[in-house]
């Protein structure tokens, strides 16, 4: 807060007014770019493959990006991972940066925000998906428990490990016909068990 007040005080004394949050936060750092032109100069250098420029831009802006990501996700590990993703994206796509589309910091912050929201949405979706079809999963677990071990083994290999009959036969040292028969009888028993579970004959 003291630094910010110092900056504001400097403005009142007639010095140039900071125009971006980055300029305010890094006003005391002598290596910070003083203008948007310099920020964009770094981006252009990054687009040309200059790793030192990437490091310089990272040093000047990663705290802002990380802070935003921490605020959006509330999780340090995720914020750290997404921060790296934002700069990795900058490294790969710097050539697309157009100064007409906003400041470099604003672009980085937008990128961070959309990545955080996408990650949070994806996590929520996975949670929702795990909760879906729970009745069926439970019924299936109960029905699988009633199978002979060799039938269950063959069915689990075919449907959960997604192996072909030939692959299962090789793995279990059985003939393909035997595996086919075990899967067939297992499926028949599962059908009966699920029907009984629903109260059907």
């Amino acid at each position, binding site marked *: 807060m003291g630094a910010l007040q110092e900056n504001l005080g400097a403005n009142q004394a007639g010095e140039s007014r900071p125009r971006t949050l980055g300029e305010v936060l890094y006003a005391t750092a002598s290596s910070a770019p003083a203008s948007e032109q310099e920020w964009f100069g770094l981006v252009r250098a990054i687009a040309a493959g200059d790793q030192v420029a990437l490091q310089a831009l990272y040093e000047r802006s990663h705290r802002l990006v990380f802070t935003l990501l921490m605020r959006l996700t509330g999780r340090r590990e995720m914020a750290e991972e997404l921060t790296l993703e934002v700069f990795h994206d900058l490294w790969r796509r710097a050539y697309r940066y157009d100064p007409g589309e906003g400041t470099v910091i604003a672009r980085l912050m937008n990128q961070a925000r959309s990545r955080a929201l996408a990650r949070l949405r994806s996590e929520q*979706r996975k949670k929702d*998906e795990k909760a*879906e079809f729970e009745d*069926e999963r439970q019924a299936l677990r109960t029905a699988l428990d009633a199978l002979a071990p060799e039938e269950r083994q063959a069915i689990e290999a075919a449907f959960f490990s997604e192996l072909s009959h030939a692959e299962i036969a090789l793995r279990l040292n059985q003939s393909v016909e035997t595996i086919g028969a075990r899967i067939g009888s297992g499926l028949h028993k599962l059908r009966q068990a699920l029907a009984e579970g629903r109260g059907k004959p």
Partner: protein
Amino acid sequence: MTRVLVIDDNDDFRKLALLWFQIHGIEAEGAANGAQGLELQRARPATVIVTDIFMPEKEGIETIQDLRREFPETKIIAMTGREALTDYDVFQVAREVGAIKTLKKPFKLDDLVAVVKELSP
């Protein structure tokens, strides 16, 4: 004979659905994305295709369009559980490009089996 192709990037759902179909005597095969689904359909055509609408690689609407173009006789069921980010009605779009039925997850797998049987020749 009814043969179903399930296209969904959610492995858990796809495996469960495939097993559920087989338990009910319906031959079924699965693909994790639209491109893989198209390849499988070309290799071993299904009579009914159940596809998720939101998928990486090749998403559902585009997949439905391509399937409809190449396999006009195949019945397509579009499904999703994801809430649309806007008022854009993905089910309506899915129907417009060729889905004959739409289902919102979660549904009962028995209901999915019933719909497939209803659509089967």
